[in-house]
């Protein structure tokens, strides 16, 4: 079928709304085109495989895999749109471009004591190809070969023509029947002149043809569904992929959390060292001086005592600031909602807080949400030119394992906010990631800005929690 033909088929059903079968048929026909694309990618991947492993032409492999992935991603998108269930990408991420050049080789080749894989041995002998660019490609190559998702993509691409044919069978049946019904009327020949020896009379032919059309219409959605399900099954991450993606994500967020904690401890140490400790030393020195002076020069002693008092007041003020940054007292005293209210009262924006939370989230989560909200509100006050803000806290999907705490912060500012690398919002996002939380931003130019953060109540820990 030509591309134009398919286009017509694709649009055709839209003129007949309500006919599920016709629509499904049209889609099935459209899939033929996509399947041709996939098949082409599969053929190219097969050729690249032969070239890579047979002739050592490794440079053909990455482009072939990338093409395969593009086609598969397009199909994932289509499946997601059609079925309403998004199909995730199963691929293992590539190693970052700037990864240590020397660091990874000993671990791979020397440390393990194993012989390097065949394709590597090949490249080590050809010294000319030993540059960093080559090694970057080599890493990519290796990742593409070892990622099982590559092979599942390949299988999908190879079987997708078969799947497309399955989805197109009802359409073919309907076309056949329509043709059979029209032929006698157009040519005046008996119906069996085209089909063979049967049916001999219109009395047999017309019901048969109508039945075939009906059957085709009835089975078209099912045929498309079969195609979609097999396709999704192959393209979706397997349980194993999902686990390894999860492990990778946990490892990343854990290392972020560990780094953040270390930085925090370092900051606290520095603040204590430069602030409170120094002030207490001053108080001690002052008290020593008072001991000396109190008999001989009471006036001077009084002046030094005043200094000591001032130092202790400053030390207390610094400690207060420090404590607020570690764990705000209001959070300990009043819980999350009132702590957020306290932030709202402190904000220069006129801020309304509404909450439907009944319980109190676990302590770690509470603190994360508190700092996130106060950062978001500070951001709104600083950058958006807003006058008012609204904060809403509630739980979603209550009573299910997916129960989550959702907080929205809205302001009436000029909008146009975005998540810039190294910016405050990105920092909030990273900190929330430790709790599997996400931050969503909607900020059209001209406002309003709506920030939504959502944290699941049940973390990856055995504890059962209540939000």
């Amino acid at each position, binding site marked *: 079928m030509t591309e134009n033909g398919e286009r017509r088929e694709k649009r055709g059903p839209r003129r007949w709304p309500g006919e599920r079968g016709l629509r499904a048929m049209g889609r099935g026909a459209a899939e033929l085109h996509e399947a041709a694309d996939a098949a082409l990618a599969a053929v190219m991947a097969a050729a690249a495989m032969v070239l890579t492993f047979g002739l050592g032409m490794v440079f053909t492999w990455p482009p072939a895999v990338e093409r395969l992935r593009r086609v598969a991603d397009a199909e994932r998108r289509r499946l997601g749109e059609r079925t309403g269930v998004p199909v995730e990408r199963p691929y293992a991420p590539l190693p970052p471009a700037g990864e240590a050049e020397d660091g990874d080789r000993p671990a791979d080749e020397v440390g393990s004591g194993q012989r390097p894989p065949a394709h590597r041995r090949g490249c080590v002998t050809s010294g000319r190809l030993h540059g960093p660019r080559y090694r970057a490609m080599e890493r990519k190559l290796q990742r593409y070969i070892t990622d099982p998702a590559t092979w599942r993509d390949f299988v999908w691409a190879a079987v997708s023509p078969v799947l497309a044919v399955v989805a197109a069978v009802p359409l073919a049946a309907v076309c056949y029947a329509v043709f059979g019904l029209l032929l006698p009327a157009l040519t005046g020949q008996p119906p069996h002149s085209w089909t063979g020896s049967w049916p001999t009379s219109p009395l047999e032919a017309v019901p048969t043809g109508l039945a075939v059309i009906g059957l085709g219409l009835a089975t078209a959605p099912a045929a498309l569904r079969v195609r979609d399900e097999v396709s999704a099954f192959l393209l979706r991450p397997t349980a194993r992929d999902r686990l390894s993606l999860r492990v990778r994500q946990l490892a990343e967020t854990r290392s972020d959390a560990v780094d953040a904690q270390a930085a925090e401890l370092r900051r606290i140490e520095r603040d204590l060292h430069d602030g409170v400790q120094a002030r207490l030393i001053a108080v001690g020195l002052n008290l020593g001086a008072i001991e000396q002076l109190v008999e001989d020069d009471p006036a001077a002693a009084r002046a030094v005592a005043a200094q000591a*008092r001032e130092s202790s*007041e400053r030390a207390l003020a610094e400690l207060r600031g420090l404590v607020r940054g570690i764990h705000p*007292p209001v959070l300990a*005293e009043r819980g999350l909602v009132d702590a957020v209210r306290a932030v709202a009262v402190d904000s220069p924006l006129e801020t309304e807080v509404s909450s439907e939370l009944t319980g109190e989230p676990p302590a770690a989560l509470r603190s994360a949400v508190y700092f996130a909200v106060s950062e978001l509100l500070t951001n709104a006050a600083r950058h958006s030119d807003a006058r008012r803000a609204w904060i809403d806290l509630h739980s979603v999907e209550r009573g299910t394992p997916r129960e989550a705490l959702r907080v929205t912060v809205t302001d009436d500012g000029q909008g146009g906010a975005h998540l810039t690398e190294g910016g405050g919002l990105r920092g909030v996002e990273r900190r929330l990631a430790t709790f599997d939380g996400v931050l969503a931003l909607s900020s059209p130019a001209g406002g309003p800005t709506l920030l939504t953060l959502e944290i699941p109540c049940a973390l990856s820990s055995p504890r059962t929690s209540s939000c």
Partner: protein
Amino acid sequence: MRVVLAEDLFLLREGLTRLLEAHGFEIAAAVASGPELARALREERPDVAVVDVRLPPTQTDEGLQVSLEARRERPGLPVLVLSQHIVQLYARELLADGRGGVGYLLKDRVFNSGQFLDAVRRVAGGGTAMDPEVIAKLLASNARDAPLARLTPREQEVLELMAEGRSNAAISRELVLSEGAVSKYTTSIFAKLDLAPSEDDNRRVRAVLAYLSGTRDR
């Protein structure tokens, strides 16, 4: 003047008891927990209560809650709340009923016994004693308020001291001005903020605080 004192840290409780007794206050009860405070406030009916926000057994804001509850039972019961930190929300809750006789100070202010005792007396007399930090935060959160921006630096200073609850006499001492000058400033401040002038010190303070915390009907 009879005082009920609630503070869970032994050293601070003893220190405050000694300080207050040395200046002619009578300590009716010195307690260390929320329930004890509630009982003491009911039974002793003190002239003023000096209360730490955070008290056992919950170690939350039990002191504040008991004080607010007692003020609901006995409106206007003078309460001076002490805390290690300032939370504006608490100040707002204390001021919410619009009656005087409330104070909210950092514990550090105890170091300056003159000012602290002055605050206790002021609260006992139905006045207000707000920590300078409360006022500073209130002003900061009103940074975009146009009428406030029109105040001269001197008027700002007077406003801050007035919002803490100081009388004209106290303000004139603090800023080394004549009382007449202070009252000229206050009149000008009230005009700029569009507040009804009042000769009564306490009502005047409450109007200013209501303005700053945005609870005034605008």
